[in-house]
């Protein structure tokens, strides 16, 4: 239990105007254009080409490779940020991971700097190095190609490469983790090194293969940690050099101080708030040398850093303004990198950040209120900066946290128009204990990436392993295992033509046959790729910052974490439920259409006046997910239940279960764009609904919508979900934040897991699409993360525009204006 000592939890007297450093850094941040950084690719290629020892264990090999890079990584200070270290050599950099998809850049080396959408700068010299030195080495060495060779181009891999069935994310990353930083802060990396050295020594004469592996693992840990400490030394040297040449004595003093900090941490224990912040940041930089920058989430920073904040404040070493400035500096550091996105992937992933999640508030391991002064400081920084990354999330326990806290988070959402996202402690803790995690561990959960849940530093959930397009099995059920988009090719099992079916139950069985088959394919591929990761991409550095691996002597990729699982998320959930509803209602209950008629119109994309009439009927009459219509509730529940049981029945290569979740990044737009018409009256090529959000326009009443979603929450959705709600901004902010908070609390008490907001109108977003220059900083919630509206592709912009907008003064959907 903590006590709030702040007089004003909103900290409204601290503004960017009186925090000039943050103001300056923020302005620079928005002016920066991403640049591709080839340092990592250069040095790991160099290592593998000239120094690699094939006799090394995978962990040792990885450690040496990463450490070689860290020893050569340039130490850079791009601006007046008080935190030393950066993930790349560029001020806003996109690192390259040839182990994954970096080679997709190869055909675009000439164009990536100047392409129309989200260009990423690459110098001619660096392009040449990639072209001649680096990329040729990797031709058959990335996860995807090794999987293909090793497993003989299996069917599941071909399905994935089709991209319209599911995405196997391991070809691009595992990352998605929350480390445990407390031990590192208390003992320093040298403390961790000593621990690893002792453990290795105890295994000096291994008697079996397992002990040999453990010894190798501990050696790998030491090698990687040495790399991080070496980089910290280089940062110190560079800072000292900059201090020597600085003209302004104040600048010189700042560099001198940063140098001193980098000499102390992360090698040694942190003794101040600032040291603790910088130690965590340098570790994040190290982790990013090993793991690609996808959702490497720092976790519960308001908890981890609180002791350092407290003691500095008590000792008079720190004041509020400085604390806010330092936290702001860390936020901007976390935002210093983007993913390299080739043009071809813009449609699927365009505009996404790297989604490092920070989690605030909620309860502590004992279940007591964990909100502290630092929580409010971090909320204020989030409000002031209003930047895409880090992805800030607020946990809320409606019994333990104060309503003042809930109202304050609401206020930040209304002021930033989008962040943070709200997480329900009760439902999410239940989701994790349902997975066998202890109550104490579940209470210490943090958000990973978009919305995924993990006990901090104990859970290795590979939460983005599979992204399943639920519209695919639906189409396969409608067309006997084929899909219009893949033509006459028999994809899934041959199932009876729907016209032969006697009942909706029969159709539901067929749908499950196709779904189960596709899920099995996706899981098979994930297992193959998991095996390849075990071989070429272990994470000894990340493992050393986890609870579990250091006891088991096992890398995370080998199942070293306390809890192991793989996450599968789902795209088009609401669209598929509504299609099931439409089929059940119009074909089997009303018998308004025969299944053949319905399919005829679906195939023809509801063309012609008759088709349009049928489409309107399907859109307006059958029960909809997002209302309390019994059929819609039943079908939504059945699908969630079925997916839960299906995934839980599979065990992954690390010995853990699969966990279903419902978030979609921008894939609901991309996949919707290439999927044919569906039985709920959706025309071909239209975007799908995001996350677990009801179809746009299908849920006219706010409370019914929240109730319908909330009842799916808890144990059946252990991976988390993203519910997007759009609200009309109101002039009376005070009143609005009151209703806003009340509405969230009611939704949470009904067991809703998560909700995130866009506080903006159709008209404003339409205008932003038309005149992007007027909205350079407009930040929106996509599906679990934030993006700048201008960076999104056209389909995703349309999806955001057409999302149902509710008025908080009447709880009703605002009618969508005519779209040009």
């Amino acid at each position, binding site marked *: 239990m903590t006590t709030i000592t702040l007089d004003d939890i909103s900290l409204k007297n601290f503004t960017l105007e009186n925090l000039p450093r943050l103001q300056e850094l923020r302005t620079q941040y928005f002016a920066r254009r991403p640049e591709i950084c080839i340092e990592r690719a250069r040095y790991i290629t160099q290592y593998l080409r000239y120094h690699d020892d094939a006799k090394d264990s995978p962990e040792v090999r990885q450690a040496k490779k990463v450490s070689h890079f860290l020893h050569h990584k340039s130490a850079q200070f791009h601006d007046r940020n008080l935190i030393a270290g950066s993930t790349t050599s560029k001020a806003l950099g996109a690192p390259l991971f040839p182990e994954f998809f970096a080679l997709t850049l190869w055909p675009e080396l000439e164009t990536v700097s100047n392409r129309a959408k989200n260009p990423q700068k690459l110098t001619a010299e660096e392009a040449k190095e990639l072209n001649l030195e680096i990329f040729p080495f990797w031709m058959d060495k990335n996860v995807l190609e090794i999987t293909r060779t090793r497993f003989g181009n299996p069917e599941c891999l071909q399905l994935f490469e089709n991209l319209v069935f599911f995405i196997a994310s391991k070809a691009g990353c595992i990352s998605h983790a929350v480390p445990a930083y407390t031990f590192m802060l208390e003992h320093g990396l040298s403390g961790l090194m000593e621990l690893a050295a002792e453990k290795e020594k105890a295994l000096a004469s291994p008697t079996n293969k397992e002990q040999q592996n453990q010894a190798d693992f501990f050696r790998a840990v030491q090698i990687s940690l040495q790399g991080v400490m070496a980089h910290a030394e280089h940062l110190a040297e560079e800072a000292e050099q900059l201090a020597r040449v600085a003209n302004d004595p104040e600048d010189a003093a700042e560099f001198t101080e940063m140098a001193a900090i980098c000499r102390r941490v992360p090698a040694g224990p942190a003794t101040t708030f600032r040291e603790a912040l910088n130690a965590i940041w340098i570790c994040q930089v190290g982790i990013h040398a090993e793991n690609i920058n996808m959702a490497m989430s720092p976790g519960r920073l308001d908890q981890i850093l609180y002791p350092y904040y407290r003691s500095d404040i008590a000792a008079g070493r720190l004041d509020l303004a400085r604390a806010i400035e330092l936290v702001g500096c860390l936020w901007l550091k976390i935002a210093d990198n983007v993913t390299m996105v080739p043009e071809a992937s813009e449609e699927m992933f365009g505009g996404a950040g790297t989604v490092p999640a920070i989690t605030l508030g909620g309860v502590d391991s004992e279940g007591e209120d964990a909100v502290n002064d630092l929580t409010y400081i971090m909320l204020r920084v989030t409000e002031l900066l209003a930047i895409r990354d880090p992805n800030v999330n607020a946990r809320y326990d409606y019994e333990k946290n104060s309503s003042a806290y809930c109202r304050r988070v609401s206020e930040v959402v209304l002021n930033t128009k989008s962040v943070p996202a709200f997480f329900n402690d009760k439902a999410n803790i239940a989701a994790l204990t349902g997975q066998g995690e202890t109550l104490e561990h579940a209470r210490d959960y943090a958000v990973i990436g978009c919305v995924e849940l993990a006990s901090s530093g104990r859970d290795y959930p590979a939460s983005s392993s599979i992204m399943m397009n639920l519209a695919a099995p639906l189409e396969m059920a409608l067309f006997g295992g084929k899909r219009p988009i893949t033509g006459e090719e028999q994809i899934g099992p041959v199932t009876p033509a729907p016209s032969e079916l006697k009942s909706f139950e029969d159709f539901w069985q067929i749908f499950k046959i196709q779904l189960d088959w596709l899920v099995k394919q996706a899981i098979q591929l994930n297992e193959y790729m998991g095996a390849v990761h075990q071989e070429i991409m272990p994470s000894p550095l990340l493992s050393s910052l986890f609870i579990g691996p250091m006891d088991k002597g096992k890398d995370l990729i080998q199942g070293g974490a306390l809890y192991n699982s793989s996450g599968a998320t789902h795209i088009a959930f609401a669209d598929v439920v509504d299609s099931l509803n439409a089929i059940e209602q119009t074909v089997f209950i009303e018998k308004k259409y025969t299944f053949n008629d319905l399919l005829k119109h679906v195939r023809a994309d509801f063309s012609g*006046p008759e088709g349009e009439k049928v489409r309107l009927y399907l859109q307006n009459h059958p029960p909809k997910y997002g209302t309390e219509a019994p059929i819609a509730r039943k079908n939504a529940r059945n699908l969630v239940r079925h997916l839960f049981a299906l995934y839980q029945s599979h065990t992954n290569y690390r010995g853990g279960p699969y966990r279903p979740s419902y978030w979609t990044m921008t894939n609901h737009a991309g996949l919707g764009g290439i999927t044919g018409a569906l039985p709920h009256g959706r025309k071909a090529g239209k975007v799908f609904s995001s996350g677990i959000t009801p179809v746009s326009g299908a849920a006219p009443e706010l409370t*019914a919508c929240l109730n319908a979603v909330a009842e799916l929450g808890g144990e059946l959705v252990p991976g988390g979900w993203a519910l997007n709600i759009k609200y009309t901004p109101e002039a009376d902010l005070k009143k609005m934040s009151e*209703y806003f908070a*009340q509405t969230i609390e009611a939704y949470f008490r009904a067991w809703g897991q998560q909700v995130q907001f866009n506080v903006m109108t159709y008209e404003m977003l339409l205008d932003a699409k038309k005149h992007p220059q007027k909205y350079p900083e407009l930040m929106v919630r996509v599906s679990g993360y934030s993006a700048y509206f201008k960076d999104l592709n056209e389909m995703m912009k349309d999806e955001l525009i057409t999302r149902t907008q509710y008025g908080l003064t*009447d*709880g009703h959907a605002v009618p969508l204006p005519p779209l040009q």
Partner: protein
Amino acid sequence: MKALVGNINRYALHDGPGIRTTVFFKGCTLHCPWCHNPELISPEPEVAFYPERCITCGDCLAVCPQEAIRMQSEDRVDRKRCTGCGLCAESCPSGALARVGREYELEELIEILLRDRMFYKMSGGGVTLSGGEPTQQLLFISALLNRLRHEGIHTTLETNGLFFYEQFAAACLDYLDLIFFDLKFADSAQHQKVLGCCNRVIWENLSSLLTKRAQDVIVRIPMIPGYTATHENIDRIGRFLRQQKAQYYSLLPYNPYGLAKAAAVSMTPDQTLPEQAMDQSELLPWQEFFYGMALVTP
């Protein structure tokens, strides 16, 4: 037990405290030209027509058992023939035809009203009965309010005040937390002329209610240009309320939203009413007539 309900509005913020669900009963004993819900005046089910949604497919024509569909007519529905059975609305693909008024069983309605219980609890809200005139279906609302009271839900009634007091009091009063009581005209002849009945019963009912439950009654006056919003009328109402020791009053600014809705059920809108809504600030000068009473703003 059944009642004819025109609409159930969830997340209502202006019909009493907190977040509420408002049930609009169909059928009203007054005929105010400015009525916000003209489609709820008739005590029978009706069909509303929204021409902008119509795709002229003619499916309605095919299903209507009364031959009441007129494809050439702007109103689409021949009101003399229409029985409000709603078959046309069920078949209408685009939602251009919609049924207004549906019978609800008590249990069915209660189930719907309890769905937002969490929202009531979080906001200090509850359920409001409105209309139409809810007291026209007195036995039903009595049973409904009783049940809601047992469920611990705050209850509010919006009434035009035209009911038999003793019956109303016996059936509902104990189960009501709050009553919005509308007053329109102080002059009985004008009341008779514009609304279709004299105001004697209404004013007596208010008087009886105030004697018993003044702390739970908010008297509402719709401020209608050309009708109620006159110096003399408001002055008389103010004096009457003071005399009756009313504690709370509320002024409803005129808005024209009912006019468009009237067209959907083939009612001719009152041409004298302005198209412009009244601004909240225009209510200020009227407040002086109600000194000694507390103003309640929704």
